[in-house]
C-alpha cells in the first residue's frame, strides 16, 4: 500500500485478555518502529526492528509486551494479560533504513486500545 497500515484501528478488550496489533509497513522499508501514545502525551518509543530482528526493545514496559517481525515486513505487537494502564494509541512507523536523521519516519494512523 501507499502508507503504513495498522489493524485494528480500534480495539476494546477486558482486563486480563490477550491482544494483537498488526502493522504493515511501506513496501521496501527495512526499519519498523512501535510507539505508544497515551492521552495528552507525545509518542513513546517501544521497539525498533531492522529487518527481522529487534535491534532495540528497551522501550517495552514489561514482559507482557512482545513484538515480532518474522519475515522482515509485517509486524505484530502482542500484549498479554492486558491492564487498564495499557489503554493508549499504539503507533507503528517505518523508514527506508534505521537512521531517522533525514526525518523519514512514516507513521500509520495507529491502533487505539481500550482496556476495560
Amino acid at each position, binding site marked *: 500500500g501507499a502508507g503504513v497500515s495498522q489493524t485494528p484501528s480500534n480495539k476494546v478488550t477486558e482486563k486480563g485478555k490477550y491482544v494483537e496489533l498488526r502493522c504493515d509497513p511501506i513496501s521496501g522499508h527495512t526499519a519498523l518502529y512501535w510507539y505508544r501514545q497515551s492521552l495528552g502525551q507525545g509518542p513513546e518509543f517501544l521497539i525498533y526492528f531492522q529487518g527481522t530482528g529487534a535491534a532495540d526493545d528497551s522501550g517495552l514496559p514489561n514482559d507482557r509486551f512482545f513484538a515480532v517481525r518474522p519475515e522482515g515486513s509485517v509486524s505484530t505487537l502482542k500484549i498479554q494479560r492486558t491492564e487498564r494502564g495499557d489503554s493508549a494509541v499504539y503507533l507503528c512507523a517505518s523508514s527506508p533504513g534505521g537512521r531517522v536523521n533525514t*526525518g*523519514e519516519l512514516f507513521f500509520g494512523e495507529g491502533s487505539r486500545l481500550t482496556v476495560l
Partner: protein
Amino acid sequence: DQQVKQNSPSLSVQEGRISILNCDYTNSMFDYFLWYKKYPAEGPTFLISISSIKDKNEDGRFTVFLNKSAKHLSLHIVPSQPGDSAVYFCAASVLDSSYKLIFGSGTRLLVRP
C-alpha cells in the same frame, strides 16, 4: 523525567500572522531535532528537522531555530493558515540511537480565519 518539554499545550493565532511553537530539552547529548504535525485520527507526519551543528533551517513557511546554549528550539510558521491547525510535536534523538525519538507532549495550534 521529561527530556523534551513543550510547555504550551495550546496556541491560537490569527490567519496570516506568525505562529511560534516552543520546545525545551534537558539532554545535552541530543544532536538531532524534528517537528511532526498530527491531525485528528491520523499518524504524525514529519515537518522539518535540524541538526545540532546548525542554528536555523528553513523550508517554505516553516523555520526551525535551535539555541543549544539554552537547550531550546522553536518552530515558526509564517504566514499561518487555517490548514496548519493541528497538534505539533517536537522530537529529539541521539546520533548513535537515532531511531529512538523522544517526543514532547505536543502543542495544539489553532489558526483562526
